[in-house]
């Protein structure tokens, strides 16, 4: 059988795709909770107000034993900002540094784009990560969140142009 093609979510995705608590992978205030927030930008540096960010990750021990754990979904707000509350995943034991997989959907994207969030306090693991270390340093830097205070990380996503986030084909 042959696959069904991808199409854009269009501008009105919030009718079907948004969940009130989708951004809470863990309840806010849970032990070890970290809030990852950022802004989705287009190629003109303008915020994307009709986007959707989905995250998927291992648990704090690096496992996927519980398929009900690890998914986050956040709409972008009118100013392009979004946030997910989660815990830092453990290493998955296959040589990769702790990471969160990310799908970005928006009007104007005919297929999702996929990126990853790596963690700024994992310098050694990040240096040894086969994905990060294969990228030029300035490109790899787009995949590492920045420290924004206790329990706070920042991860902006730039779809195109200067500082363009690295996107993957999987």
């Amino acid at each position, binding site marked *: *059988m*042959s*696959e*069904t*093609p*991808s*199409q*854009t*979510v*269009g*501008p*009105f*995705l*919030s*009718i*079907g*795709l948004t*969940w009130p*608590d989708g951004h809470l992978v863990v309840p806010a205030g849970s032990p070890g909770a970290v809030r990852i927030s950022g802004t989705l930008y*287009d*190629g*003109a540096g*303008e915020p*994307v107000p*009709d986007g959707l960010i*989905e995250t*998927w*990750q*291992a648990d704090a021990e690096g496992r*996927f034993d519980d*398929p*009900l754990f*690890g*998914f986050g979904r956040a709409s972008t707000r009118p100013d392009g900002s979004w946030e997910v509350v989660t815990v830092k995943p453990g290493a*998955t034991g*296959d040589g*990769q540094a702790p*990471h969160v*997989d990310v*799908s970005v959907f*928006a*009007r*104007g*994207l*005919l*297929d*999702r*784009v996929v990126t990853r969030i790596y963690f700024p306090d994992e310098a050694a693991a990040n240096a040894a990560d*086969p*994905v990060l270390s*294969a990228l030029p340093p300035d490109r790899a830097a787009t995949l590492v969140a920045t420290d924004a205070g206790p329990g706070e990380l920042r991860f902006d996503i730039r*779809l*195109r142009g200067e500082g*363009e*986030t*690295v*996107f*993957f*084909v*999987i």
Partner: protein
Amino acid sequence: MTYRPAADGTHPPLLSPGYRSTALRAPSHAPVVLPQGLTELAGPALAGPSGPSDHDLTRQHAGEPIGQRIIVFGRVLDSDGRAVPDSLVEIWQANAAGRYAHARDDWPAPLDPNFTGGGRVVTGSDGSYSFTTIKPGAYPWGNHHNAWRPAHIHLSLFGRAFTQRLVTQMYFPDDPLFAQDPIFGSVPDEKARMRMVSTFDLDATRADWALAYRFDVVLRGRDQTPFEEPHE
């Protein structure tokens, strides 16, 4: 085990100048190939915040929505023909007049107080799903001169793995608007394009109640070992 990439021409290029909104949103760098590891091979098992009327968009409000009642049904499969059970399918759509229940839709067609246009259902053990809804209308959207979107329903599917995540649109048979629509036309391969068109199914209509359209969705299949895809 890995999930096979789709055949060339199946998915639209992100930069599709006919669809103007892609110009500033399509990445300019070629995507980097990411080996499929545990994160990509696992996937969320989601029910979503579902309620009893989520599969029947005609029963989400006090009254009946205006328009032609339809059943949209089918199976979610992978490209090896295997059913994808227990997987969340989400839909959203315009009302019968072609207007979305959204503050930013300013097309001056009537809103329907009895129709929101959002639905959710989880696939059965054989990958089957079914929604009852209203046939959406076409609407103009300003992309180019006299641009009208063919009637369509958006579908979001999770599959079994992060690699199988898909958002698509279901179209209706023989729509005269296909040829001028750059979103439908963004899919390069004509056969792939036509896989987004549902089939009218008289046997599945409910007498004196609703017409029926079948729409099977096919997600990526798996290889046991990674190797080059043979040419089709």
